[in-house]
């Protein structure tokens, strides 16, 4: 353990003020550049192109490409809405998702003058926010959504909250009534900045057109820098309509926003000593690994010290699942062998994760033998849910880069017994709940089989977006993820209805990859109107509908926790094939294991969006399951007996 001073520094903000040496990271040119390069999937062609785009964005090349109104051959004055479009282009935005309304008409009036900005018209603002979210997660860029005042803005809130809980960079734009009517309960007026205040990283109310260039620049910087998150910008109609003479800022003045990127050096050395001592170390990789693009460093650490890697739900894909050191998913519906590994570890190395209650279960029984190293860029996450021995505030990639030279190469044979034991646990744990024949009971189609088949068919390279509930758990367990950011899931907020619109955004953000949405019949009925958006904008999302005529996870809890007292968990759906066809989508159906491959292949062969209706077993549960209030050692497992009837 370090000195008290060390701990104070590393624990961050609250104590920072006490020691001069703990001043926030410098904001020199070099760090400013690195900060912008928080690019998931680095090394891929697409990521390189995005990086280059961002680099250009900061140089004159791109600025010269953004034509002024005069260059566009327009004689009208430049208004706030023009400044907004220019600011979005300067941030490298190529697409955004929105829905018009009265106060946004000045913006939609000029949008046609900016053909470089692709506007995708959604069918509900919640879809716009989720699409921006999916776009951001798939591409690593800031997602942008737009809604009008009043209901348009409140409809965005679910999606904004979802992005907040999952640390997704997003800029949510809303219009508001003219500033003279603010506070007068005008038509479609609501205090939307008051509503989004607790569920955004920051928000703005802009009533002066000349503030738009600065605010948009700040919003993008805040959304993408440090721990990412949503920033909401509310603009009054007069701000959008008024003449704007302000230039776009070259530098930003945000004295209260200085994320700490570099970990404390002495804490990093202590972490290395802990790793050298540990006999049963385990890495817990979270979303932060993907956000900071630390996949290579994670792999290097795991291989150098022979440490198995477990991951959280949002950390799926941080390491290729076929790597022998990749252990699997931890938590409530994670793998039993992984949870056992956590409970028997003597050192947990938690990277970019926040010890969510779905990961720890009952905290007093969590990882009882483990000392904990916790690396996170947000000081407030350290010691929030679980007390830790070695706190390090910093960007995962940079901390691991600094840590690696101090971690000794593990002696050959030292981990043999440990890794062998984990491998034995794994064989047992992976076999138990798996329905490899495709049949759950009495030949009914098994959901885990369907999900695995989609993974196989797409060569584990597609972007797969889950909805929320059982389908989400099956997706994370069985699709098999080998590419970073190929798994997109609503983790923190658990937003049903997320799947379809987020897949829409993901497909637009990564057009080079096939995109699948794996959704349940409950979630799809919450946002199914976006099927029309897929058709109108030609977005080639393939939808795998796992239909059990149930709110599956609710039913599962009612069966296992509420003594089979089923209430409101049975729901009807439309004839999905007919519905899809009515929207103009190709649709297929599979009711038996034998039809699964054909249906997937048929959907993949369609040039455009398609839906596959999988009629899965109605009463299949996701196992193992950690009941609420219990710990990782108290997992419920599937009982192999015929259902009562």
């Amino acid at each position, binding site marked *: 353990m370090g000195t008290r001073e060390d701990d104070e520094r590393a624990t961050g903000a609250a104590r920072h003020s006490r020691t001069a040496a703990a001043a926030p990271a410098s904001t020199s040119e070099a760090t400013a550049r690195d900060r912008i390069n928080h690019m998931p999937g680095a090394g891929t062609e697409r990521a390189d192109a995005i990086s280059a785009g961002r680099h250009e964005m900061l140089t004159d090349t791109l600025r010269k490409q953004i034509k002024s109104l005069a260059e566009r051959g327009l004689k009208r004055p430049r208004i706030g809405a023009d400044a907004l479009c220019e600011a979005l282009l300067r941030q490298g935005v190529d697409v955004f998702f929105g829905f018009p309304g009265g106060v946004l008409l000045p913006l939609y009036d000029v949008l046609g003058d900016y053909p470089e900005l692709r506007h995708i018209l959604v069918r509900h603002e919640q879809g716009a926010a989720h699409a921006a979210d999916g776009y951001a997660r798939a591409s690593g860029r800031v997602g942008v959504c737009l809604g009008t005042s009043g209901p348009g803005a409140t409809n965005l809130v679910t999606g904004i909250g979802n992005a907040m809980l999952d640390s997704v960079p997003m800029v949510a734009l809303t219009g508001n009534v003219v500033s003279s009517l603010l506070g007068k309960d005008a038509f479609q007026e609501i205090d939307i900045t008051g509503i989004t205040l607790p569920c955004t990283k920051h928000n703005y109310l802009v009533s002066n057109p000349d503030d738009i260039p600065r605010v948009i620049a700040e919003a993008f910087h805040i959304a993408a820098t440090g721990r990412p998150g949503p920033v909401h910008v509310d603009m009054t109609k007069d701000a959008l309509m008024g003449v704007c003479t302000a230039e776009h800022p070259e530098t930003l003045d945000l004295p209260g926003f200085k994320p700490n990127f570099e970990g404390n050096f002495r804490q990093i050395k202590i972490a290395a000593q802990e790793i050298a001592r540990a006999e049963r170390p385990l890495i817990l990789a979270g979303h932060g690994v993907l956000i900071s693009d630390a996949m290579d460093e994670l792999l290097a650490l795991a291989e150098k010290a022979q440490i198995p890697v477990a991951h959280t739900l949002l950390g799926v894909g941080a390491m290729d699942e076929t790597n022998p050191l990749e252990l699997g998913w931890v938590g409530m519906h994670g793998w039993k062998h992984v949870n056992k590994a956590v409970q028997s570890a003597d050192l947990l190395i938690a990277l970019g994760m926040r010890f969510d209650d779905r990961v720890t279960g009952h905290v007093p029984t969590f*990882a009882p*033998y483990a000392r904990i190293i916790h690396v996170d860029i947000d000081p407030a996450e350290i010691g929030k849910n679980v007390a830790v021995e070695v706190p390090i505030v910093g960007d995962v990639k940079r901390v691991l880069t600094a840590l690696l030279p101090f971690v000794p190469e593990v002696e050959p044979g030292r981990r043999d017994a440990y890794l062998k034991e984990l491998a034995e646990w794994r064989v047992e744990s992976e076999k138990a709940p798996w329905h490899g024949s495709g049949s759950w009971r009495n030949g009914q189609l098994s959901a885990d089989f369907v999900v695995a088949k989609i993974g196989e068919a797409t060569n584990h390279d597609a972007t797969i977006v889950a909805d929320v509930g059982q389908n989400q758990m099956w997706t994370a367990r069985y699709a098999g993820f080998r590419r970073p950011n190929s798994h997109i899931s609503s983790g923190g907020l658990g937003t049903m209805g997320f799947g379809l619109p987020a897949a829409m955004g993901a497909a637009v953000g990564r057009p080079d990859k096939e995109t699948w949405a794996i959704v349940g019949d409950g979630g799809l009925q919450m946002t199914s109107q976006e099927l029309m958006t897929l058709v109108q904008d030609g977005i080639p999302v393939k939808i795998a509908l796992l239909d059990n005529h149930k709110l599956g996870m609710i039913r599962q809890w009612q069966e296992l926790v509420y003594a089979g007292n089923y209430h409101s968990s049975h729901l009807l759906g439309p004839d999905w094939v007919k519905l899809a066809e009515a929207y103009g989508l190709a649709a297929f159906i599979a009711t038996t294991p034998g039809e699964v491959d054909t249906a997937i292949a048929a959907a993949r062969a369609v040039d455009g969006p398609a839906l596959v209706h999988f009629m899965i077993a109605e009463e299949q549960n996701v196992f193992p399951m950690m009941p609420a209030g219990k710990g990782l050692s108290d997992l419920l497992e599937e009982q192999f007996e015929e259902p009562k009837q």
Partner: protein
Amino acid sequence: MSATDPSQAARSAPAHTAPPARALPGHGDSHRHVLVAIVLNKPGVLNRVASLMRARNFNIESLSVSHTDQPEVSRMTITLRGDDVAVEQAAKQLYRLIDVLKVQDVTDDPIVEHEIALIKIRADERHRGEVLTIAEMYKAKVVDLAAESLIVEATGTETEVDALIALLRGFGIKELVRSGTVVMSRGTGSIEEAVKR
């Protein structure tokens, strides 16, 4: 596998040697803390701070806000109860606000701590002398005098003001207002130094 291997212990050791429960942060002894927050003087910043404290389930006892010597910077003094970890968590959460420049827990630091209270007391000529004596002992001033009442202005730490109010309560308090605590560090050091622009 060595004998001290923890997993071995987990599987073979009898129940009474089970490891101690992992501590839950924020469940220690609760006591009073004083936080000073230096914030940008922007519209809504008080709302942001108050909203955050509510959302994170921290109960503010007093909050006082005013300008500093720099017009674009405001200063908040927040007193709240909680254990050390919980209050540290509150401070870290405050740091996440973009408009917050600095947060410092000054509870254990050498500080001058004051609040001001105006106390309107029911006092006619029979009790006036007694009230004045008590006020004098607490270095409080009488700032308004009427036939049936008077207003005492008291300054001091929260406990000093509490003590005076307790003594005056017997006469009948008609009205009471307290400013909330404000603090300043002793010596030449300045809490605002790091944020001078």
